[in-house]
């Protein structure tokens, strides 16, 4: 897979900083539709980043990440509805629980040598367990759906995450930035270098004395824990949860397209991927509407075709190519 990450050139850093400033002041002059679209982009960038830790850094292809989203979402929702515990406090429960679940899956996989596609199928199996299991769980109303009580539209309550899209916008923007920073720190730390070594050549890493099991587990657990926040956000933003939807395999697939297209294992890959994909989807909608085409399914076909083009033309991901083209990468990469 080549180099681990692409460092940013001064031009790249300035661009990134500029983008951040733009995103911070955007709500002042943008409509709610644009904010809603961006919230989606940030969400996918964030969860994609979380997934990327497991895949890009530890090389484990997880196709059941919706499991963590759903678990955390339901946990925080139930704590809120039944015990009145706010989402931020709820995270104190949700994150450890998802990390434990991730650890269990990771342990089973690593100890029994389940890798590659087999690991991916294993993760699907667990997500499906959750889907069917929650369908029968009384406390979350099973497949009937769990609805969170919604406050009146005037109030903005950050502590309980009830409020206007603007609030959610900033929360998710902040989360994405934090995730980026966190991943950068991890990558540049000793753990990051071990991950790089393991990913490049696991045998050699083990021979060099690196406890591959421990560091792979670390990546899996961190990934799961990070995803938990995404789950909490989902629950409090949409205010309804259905096992059939939140644990669905299409959700798992949806959140990994971004990082893969953007550039696996790179820091900004998930972010670029999220912007690209959601932007593509919404633009296709606008263009088709402007052309007067009212054919259900047409947008998805075009979307699939665009995806195909990108995968074939840029199998390494869009970000690495973009960085090199626009001179955003550090010298020497």
């Amino acid at each position: 897979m080549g180099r681990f990450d692409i460092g940013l050139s001064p031009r790249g850093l300035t661009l990134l900083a500029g983008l951040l400033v733009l995103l911070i002041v955007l709500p002042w002059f943008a409509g709610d539709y644009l904010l809603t679209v961006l919230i989606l982009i940030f969400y996918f960038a964030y969860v994609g980043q979380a997934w990327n830790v497991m895949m890009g850094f530890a090389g484990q292809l997880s196709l059941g990440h919706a499991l963590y989203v759903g678990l955390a979402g339901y946990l925080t929702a139930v704590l809120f509805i039944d015990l009145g515990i706010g989402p931020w406090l709820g995270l104190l429960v949700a994150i450890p629980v998802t990390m434990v679940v991730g650890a269990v899956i990771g342990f089973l996989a690593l100890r029994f040598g389940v890798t590659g596609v087999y690991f991916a199928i294993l993760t699907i199996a667990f997500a499906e367990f959750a889907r069917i299991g929650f369908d029968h769980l009384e406390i979350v109303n099973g497949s009937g759906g769990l609805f969170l009580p919604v406050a009146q539209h005037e109030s903005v309550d950050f502590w309980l995450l009830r409020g206007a899209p603007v609030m959610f916008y900033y929360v998710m923007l902040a989360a994405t930035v934090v995730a980026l920073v966190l991943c950068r720190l991890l990558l540049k730390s000793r753990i990051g270098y071990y991950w790089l070594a393991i990913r490049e050549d696991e045998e050699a890493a083990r021979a060099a004395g690196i406890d591959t099991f421990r560091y792979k587990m670390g990546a899996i657990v961190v990934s799961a824990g990070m995803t938990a926040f995404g789950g909490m956000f989902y629950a409090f933003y949409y205010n309804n949860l259905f096992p059939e939807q939140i644990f669905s395999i299409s959700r798992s697939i949806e959140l990994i397209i971004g990082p893969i297209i953007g550039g696996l294992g790179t820091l900004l890959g998930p972010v670029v991927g999220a912007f690209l994909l959601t932007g593509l989807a919404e633009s296709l909608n606008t263009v088709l509407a402007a052309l007067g085409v009212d054919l259900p399914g047409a947008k998805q076909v075009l979307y699939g075709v665009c995806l195909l083009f990108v995968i074939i033309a840029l199998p390494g991901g869009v970000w690495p190519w973009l960085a090199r083209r626009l001179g955003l990468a550090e010298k020497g990469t």
Partner: protein
Amino acid sequence: MPAEIYLNVAVSGILTGLVYGLMALGLSVIFGVVRVVNFAHGEMMTVAMYLAVVCFSAFGLDPMIMLIPIAAVLFVLGYLLQKGVINAFVTGPESTQFLLMIAIAIIIVNVLLIIFGPDARGVQTSYAYDSFAVGPLLIDATKAYAAGASIVVAAALYAFFRFTLIGTAIRAAADNHTGALVVGLNVQHLYAVTFGLGAACVGAAGTMLILLIDVTPALGPAYTLLAFIIVITGGLGSMPGALLGGVLIGLTEAMAGLVFTPSAKSMFGFGILVLVLLFRPQGILGRKT
């Protein structure tokens, strides 16, 4: 519950399992030889099902007759798909292959939606409601026919790989890619043939399945997942394994649904999958690599 219910459900589960097995056989061939994670497997089957529907409603041709023609069409589609698009990704990372197939799946599903609309389509044959009464058993006729056809197709495929030259060449390429190249085999062509064969299998399975269920554009993904479960359980690279896996999963889910609550019956299939992955990852009839 009277014993004959259990017996009936078991037989029904086995028969359905055989059809699932045929579908999974296609994946076993594709995944086992070409090593491509074919996440558009179910969608390919959906295409075959729609072809069968069109042949029936437009020309009155029974799916049992159209089995071979539709399988042939799918063979060509599979061959072209592999040669044209997928080949470049065979040696690439799994995540990219996976994404490639996802994109193809999205396109197929939505093109089908546009062409055929969202309503379920089916095939109403004259024998659709027949059943054989064998002692206490009530065996669904169409299921029996479909299962029978599956066994025949699987046997034909097995014979192909065992006794023909090209079949042997494919097995060689699967066992040792570099070796095959060294010996002068046109591996690209062989891979395309294999993918075509896998597609043909899934085409045959689809033509049989349309007798049992109706098709909608979004039918694919559930069957892709089922195919992977069966292939892994039965054993990668083992053709009898795929059928066996199909029967096992079909039987387990049927009995689990009967004894416990049907809405949780797929959990048992997944349960078996997890156990296999952990304790016998090569599958029941697979060879340890």
